[in-house]
């Protein structure tokens, strides 16, 4: 049995590890990006000099051979679904019995004038990072467009190099689609405290390019012009479907899969960032582009690769991020504003905050947002799964804290 995986990101690698755990099939992982799996989430630390590329590799280089995982550095241009093989740019053909497409994402671009000029880029791959390194060496001011998680990382990266950063965000307040107003303002002050100019309610119109073909300024729709010879475009990512498209595998926004991760083509599966569920799970998006979801989908798709596909049930939603020095964790369902039948409680001491959303009818908690406070995942999972009420949660709140010893507690009480 030959199993081939395109993409050595967290999804592909997790799938490979779980297949290996269960069977001694031949497993080949193809990637056009790096020779070994690395943590994309750590790209910013390489740029800031906190880590080297080597340090972002979750497994030692010997790990792969020792576990019989064959690695191929090459770009897959097409899947020959009839002959069951993957065709690489080099012309090499890798044949499979079962194939997993875990091709990840690509940064969005929206057809702005100047978006392909030198000094304009998104940040997704290691190559993007190298490009960013090369094109920011002599930069004194830069613009980052897009207030998502990658945008704020780009702003931090540039700021640590002493570059003047203008952070252009379309929303009227930071992440208004996700956060409550008080939470937005916590993040906004965290960003501003680091000398970044945060422009809210601002939208990109075009990028001005100098004679040499390099970006020199950014124009906003309100007519303002912001100097900056580097423009970070962090306006979201979309599934990478070029390979599927070239191979006649059905795709929409992403590569279309059922809840068993099966694509339209037999023996070809897709999972992780690149996959779009034909029928989204209740309360979830059809495409989930997270490290955590990639890991849990990778684990689940392994069953399919082993020949007995199992229906996926997304685990309890959780995520975490860091806005400069401000840590953020979320578990369960926490809408920006509560809807009918929901209520919320919010506590803050000006630097940290907790927001708990619960059902009005029976006080059962639905989710929590925490800023500057570390929460214990297993306790929250337990509470959310077992329908704990707000009173129960507040009574046992100490149990869910995961802050370092000696941290002063923030008062959280009904």
């Amino acid at each position, binding site marked *: 049995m030959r199993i081939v995986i395109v993409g050595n990101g967290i999804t592909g690698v997790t799938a490979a590890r779980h297949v290996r755990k269960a069977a001694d099939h031949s497993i080949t992982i193809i990637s056009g990006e790096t020779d070994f799996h690395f943590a994309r989430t750590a790209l910013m630390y390489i740029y800031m*000099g906190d880590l080297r590329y080597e340090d972002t590799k979750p497994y030692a280089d010997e790990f792969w051979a020792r576990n019989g995982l064959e690695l191929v550095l090459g770009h897959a241009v097409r899947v020959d679904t009839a002959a069951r093989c993957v065709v690489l740019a080099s012309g090499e053909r890798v044949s499979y019995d079962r194939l997993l497409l875990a091709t990840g994402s690509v940064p969005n671009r929206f057809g702005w004038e100047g978006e392909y000029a030198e000094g304009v880029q998104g940040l997704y791959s290691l190559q993007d990072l190298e490009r960013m390194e090369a094109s920011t060496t002599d930069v004194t001011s830069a613009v980052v467009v897009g207030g998502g998680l990658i945008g704020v990382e780009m702003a931090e990266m540039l700021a640590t190099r002493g570059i003047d950063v203008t952070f252009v965000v379309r929303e009227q307040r930071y992440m208004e689609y996700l956060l409550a107003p008080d939470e937005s303002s916590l993040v906004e002050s965290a960003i501003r405290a680091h000398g970044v100019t945060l422009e809210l309610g601002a939208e990109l119109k075009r990028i001005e390019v100098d004679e040499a073909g390099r970006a020199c300024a950014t124009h906003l729709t309100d007519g303002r012009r912001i100097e900056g010879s580097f423009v970070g475009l962090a306006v979201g990512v979309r599934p990478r479907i070029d390979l599927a498209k070239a191979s006649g595998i059905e795709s929409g926004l992403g590569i279309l899969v059922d809840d068993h991760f099966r694509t339209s083509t037999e023996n070809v599966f897709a999972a992780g960032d690149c996959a779009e569920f034909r029928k989204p799970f209740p309360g979830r998006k059809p495409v989930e582009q997270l490290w955590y979801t990639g890991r849990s989908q990778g684990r689940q798709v392994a069953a399919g690769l082993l020949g007995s596909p199992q229906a996926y049930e997304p685990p309890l939603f959780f995520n975490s991020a860091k806005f400069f020095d401000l840590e953020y964790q979320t578990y369960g369902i926490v809408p920006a504003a509560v809807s009918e039948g929901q209520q919320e409680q919010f506590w803050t001491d000006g630097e940290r905050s907790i927001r708990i959303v619960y059902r009005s009818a029976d006080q059962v908690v639905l989710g929590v947002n925490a800023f500057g406070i570390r929460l214990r995942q297993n306790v929250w999972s337990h509470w959310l799964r077992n329908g704990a009420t707000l009173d129960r949660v507040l009574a046992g709140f100490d149990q869910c804290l995961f802050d370092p*010893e000696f941290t002063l507690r923030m008062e959280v009480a009904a």
Partner: protein
Amino acid sequence: MERLDPTLALASGPSKSTSRSAQVMAGLALLLGVVYLFGLHPFNQPPVLVAAVGLLLSAAVIADRPSGDPLSGSRLGKSLIFGGLAFGVLALAGLWRVIPDWILLTVSTGAVCAGTVVLARARYGHGSGGIRNHGVFTTPMLSRGGVAWIAAIVLTGFYVLLYWFPQSLEGIIRTIDPISYTLRGVPSDQWFMYGTFYSLAVLVMGVRALYRYRHDRYQRWRTVSVILAQGFLAYLLPHILAAFNEPEFYFSYFWPLKPEYLWPGDFGSGWIWNHPGRLGRFMVIWGAVISFVGVPVLTYYFGKRWYCSWVCGCGCLAETAGDPYRHLADSSVRSWQIERWMIHGVLVLVTFGTAILWINSAMEGGLLGSFSGGFARVYGFVFGSVFAGVIGVGFYPLMGARVWCRFGCPQAAILGLIQRFYSRFRITTNGGQCISCGNCTTYCEMGIDVRWYAQRGQNIVRASCVGCGMCASVCPRGVLKLENSSLEGRLNGPVLITSDEVDVLEEDWAASVSWK
């Protein structure tokens, strides 16, 4: 569509851009040093040459930060450090014969200390604080660049002089006399001089650590503890005791780190026991009680950290002066294997040695004859001097600050065995929150591959963990927490976790470690 460009070279981290001026200065200094070694005194003036080498080296170290890095900090701080070093070097070279040495030394040391604090304040003192490891791998002084090698050579050289050629340090030793007389009424010797500078380094770099980690209360308390432990228990108290005609006893060290405290006869305990002061017997008994009761009990409750990163003098220096070098510890499985062999080897050696010495002493020298003194001396020399000092501290800029603690310390071996097999301490992993970024593994000064455990949702229970808490501090996702809790469940992942949030693969772990 994005085009994947396989022709782009894979990044191996940002280029190490030693500033050109630093390279030139370090190069010149090296050249002058070589010239001096070969006895070709070009200026016919050795002191001038020594001064020139020192000046160039220190200038190189100071100049060595990539430009554009906001952490480069205050000009005042740098000038003070550089000026202080320069002044000290010139003074050593004998340029100001008329001014008393102790004034020169006070001025130069004071300037360096003040500069360090000013710089730390400028770098870490603003805003609300947070982890600032930016530029660590692009700063040659911190990432085994040329200047780091030079610093290691200078440091190692200092230890060589201290242990084998103390007379060459006579000048510095004499300048400490005023402190020595004040504290204990006798002139300074090389060890008093060493202890003074050691404690000063812990204090000043401790203040730096307090600025650097001020957002983290665990780190703050721990840093205060190491400053006080070194300053009081390992410096002031022993000398004050000596001034009162008691044995110069270090309450923060005991067998087997200070094996002589339990060795018979004149090598240690006998001398303390029979000391004319009134506390000698108390000290010997105290040492034995700490070794055999205090260590197991405290380690059961708090893990090895109560000692290694809160009290021990080696830890005090590592956690302060060694803080900039945490990331240099090698985290490969190979070095873990070497570490286990070496540290337990030393433990066996010192235990065996202690037993033999006692048997010999019970037989009134019948077993070893005059050789027993030889064993005590050789052990003290190899482990006390060469390993702990020369390699342990001299190699800070190359191998991190815990080389001795990891590979050579018998005390760490005992504490580690207890911590591994019978202690309430562990580092808890927060479910499936790990993003495998590698900050924890990189900044673990003991070279523990923390990420290996974290990314599979497993608690970290390792003999070598000193509980410095740095993995938890640097983790950007709040995945790690140092805890003392019940023995149950410490070796497994958290019980409530369902396999959705975390996946565990036992096989590859077993495959990578032959020892279990």
